[in-house]
């Protein structure tokens, strides 16, 4: 038992932290971060290239692929500090998801072609999984990919595709065999999203932010080497991603920064009687509750990374971390908004933080929905973790009754 990072890891944290503080434009205390999916995308790419130069972008990659083979705990520190400092530049789709998948399942040519641009921070990927009729039941996806001898032909629609409007490439799951059980007829493909037969349509969310897209494939011809790994093994190839760091430490780390910011705000803000809001016992209690939830999410995130570092598969813990982290993000946004009083409905510069927490409150509504809803996570905990029978696999004998 040891609830402490080792010295080497702490030194890395210090090095990273001073680098970030140096990179942040202006004063850290006023730094609010940027919208990486919007106008600031180019800045985010700039930082990404710097991270690549430092070797941090692909620190998790094995040394054979130009990475550092960094430990899970070091990756946790990296994500923790980047999130805490609201630092852009990380590459979830390329460096974290596709890269490792290619290393395991890609051909030599595919690796040579696609890995270096990811490692250098030069390319934006996006992920085409969800479809209009396939959300939580992802394996029911329908986007059809047919083998036309010398090429593949793709037809169908992906939706909720984050960053598709900024990406140059998409990795996606397509239906290659409609006549077998649903998990067994799916394959994993890559496509250049600038293809003239691929249409990317914006979906504006209720926060007014363009993050999601609909991606429509209409008779898209793909070369034969667009297939990654074996045909009809796409479901399992997608699951490979799960072997890489997924502690969810981002949530408590960014919540901690918001917590500090909100505490500063309520210390300085006085009510109409001239009393600082921090001395309102209800506000005080709300903040302590929030502190506990941040720590709870952090403890479980560390446990996920620890289990991964021991070569164990954190099934329950991964789901618990996702549930706690995303609920935490929603709570932070609500508290940041509530404490603004009537200004909690104002989204311009009249409001504290220019209405940031209000916008965040709208945005983070998605958190408990994406990447496996809270309900799906609880199903996973109950069935895989606790051994309860799966409802959809249950044979109910109703006839006995009549």
């Amino acid at each position, binding site marked *: *038992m*040891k*609830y*402490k*990072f*080792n010295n080497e*890891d702490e030194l890395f944290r210090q090095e990273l932290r001073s680098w970030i503080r140096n990179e942040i434009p202006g004063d850290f205390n006023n730094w609010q971060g940027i919208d990486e999916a919007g106008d600031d995308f180019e800045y985010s790419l700039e930082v990404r290239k710097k991270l690549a130069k430092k070797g941090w972008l692909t620190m998790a990659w094995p040394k054979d692929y130009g990475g550092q083979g960094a430990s899970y*705990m070091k990756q946790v520190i990296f994500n923790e500090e980047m999130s805490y400092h609201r630092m852009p530049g990380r590459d979830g789709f390329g460096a974290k998801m596709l890269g490792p998948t290619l290393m395991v399942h890609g051909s030599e040519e595919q690796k040579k072609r696609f890995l270096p641009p990811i490692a250098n921070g030069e390319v934006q990927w996006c992920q085409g999984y969800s479809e209009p009729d396939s959300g939580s039941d992802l394996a029911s996806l329908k986007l059809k990919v047919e083998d036309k001898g010398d090429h593949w032909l793709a037809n169908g629609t992906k939706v909720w595709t984050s960053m598709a409007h900024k990406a140059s490439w998409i990795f996606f799951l397509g239906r290659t065999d409609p006549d077998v059980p649903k998990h067994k007829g799916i394959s994993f493909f890559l496509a250049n999203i600038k293809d003239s037969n691929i249409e990317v349509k914006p979906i504006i969310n209720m926060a007014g932010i363009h993050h999601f897209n609909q991606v429509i494939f209409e008779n898209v011809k793909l070369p034969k080497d667009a297939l990654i790994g074996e045909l009809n093994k796409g479901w399992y190839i997608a699951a490979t991603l799960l072997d890489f760091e997924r502690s969810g430490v981002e949530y408590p780390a960014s919540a901690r920064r918001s917590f500090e910011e909100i*505490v500063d705000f309520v210390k300085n803000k006085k009510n109409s009687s001239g009393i600082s809001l*921090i*001395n309102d016992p209800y506000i*005080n*209690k709300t*903040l*302590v*509750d929030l*502190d*506990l939830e941040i*720590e*709870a999410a952090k*403890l*479980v995130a*560390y*446990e996920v*990374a*620890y289990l991964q570092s*021991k070569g164990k598969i954190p099934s*329950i*813990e991964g*789901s*618990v971390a996702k*549930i*706690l982290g995303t609920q935490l993000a929603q709570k932070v946004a609500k508290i940041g908004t509530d404490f603004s009083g009537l200004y909690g409905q104002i989204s311009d510069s009249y409001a504290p933080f220019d209405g940031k927490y209000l916008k965040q409150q709208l945005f983070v509504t998605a958190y408990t929905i994406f990447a496996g809803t809270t*309900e799906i*996570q*609880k*199903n996973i*905990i*109950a*069935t895989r*973790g*606790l*051994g*309860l*029978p*799966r*409802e959809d696999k*249950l044979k*109910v*004998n*109703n006839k*006995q*009754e009549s």
Partner: protein
Amino acid sequence: MDLGLSEIQKMLQETSRDYLVENCTMDFIRAMESDQIGISDEIWKNMADMGWLGLMIPDEYGGSGFNFDDMSILLEEMGKVGLSGPFFSTSVIGVQALLLSGDKAQKKEVLPKIASGNLKISLAFNEKTGSFEKSEVTNTNSIKNNDGWTLNGEKYFVNDAIGADYFIVASSSENKNGLSIFLVPSNTEGIEIKKMESIGGDKIYKVDFQEIKLLDSQLLGKEGEAWDILLKIFNYGAIGKTSEMSGAAQKVMNITLDYIKDRKQFDRPIGSFQAVQHHAADMAILTKVSTQFSRKAAWKLSNEEDSNIDVHRAKSYVSNAYHDLCQISHQLHGAIGYTWDYDLQIFTRKMQHQKLAYGDSNFHQKKISNLLNLK
């Protein structure tokens, strides 16, 4: 970062689990509720032989020389079988009190006898208010005289007073405007013990001390300087209780899982309904987070100077979480869990002591607020 157990801790976990499951059955736990001491002589002797009573006592005083984080693993297992009894008062609180405040002679007199199972201790701190603030000690005072001291006072919520060979009594100190603690043999003239009926079978008493004559050698530590020591003792107490509760949480969850896998309604196990599964998932979340909070605080207590924030976070979180968990378990059990014959209710009753002892959730939340400077 190493969130796993050490080899020694694993061994302690396995051997204690085997022993406790076999010897501290639910029938035994039920019998101990009405037993005056709360443990059998045989099991107490076994605990001495296995090195548990002196687990945290250094070798030189006849103990096993383990740390508090090791003890927390044993306490998890005790919590799992629902064992209360004088172990906590003697081998967690008593031992830490002696280690933190006793001089060589005092340790030599008491610790080897604790380790060998021949001596029990009870801390008498609380008074009528029932809080863990310094201001709690108002009606107990110690007055210095030529031969030593005279102690008078009324103590409430004294755990395991019957059967204790020594009380450690906290009193206000006239001279130094602080608190002092004394080692008082229970057979001293002027001590009267009355029972306070506890809901979970915990042995809780009101103890009156009248004109107790004490020698200088019975003062633990320095006059008027006991508060800092008491705070440390309470930290061990608080995390000892979170260890028990996180162990008990696992047990309550297991009882519940067994039940919902077995119980059929509408021709299917109720555990196949998602409405039920999501409650079960919530139990798993509460248990996991409780264990992490508790173990982290236990580790900090054993290895770092300042562990206050972790102690307060753990006790405030786990006290609430374990209460909620018991409530969910009852919800999933339906009527059966509510009956006296069913074991679940034993844990629910014992929970009440565990979550209140050494500070309830609100108490620790206020401490967090102070430490985070939320003012």
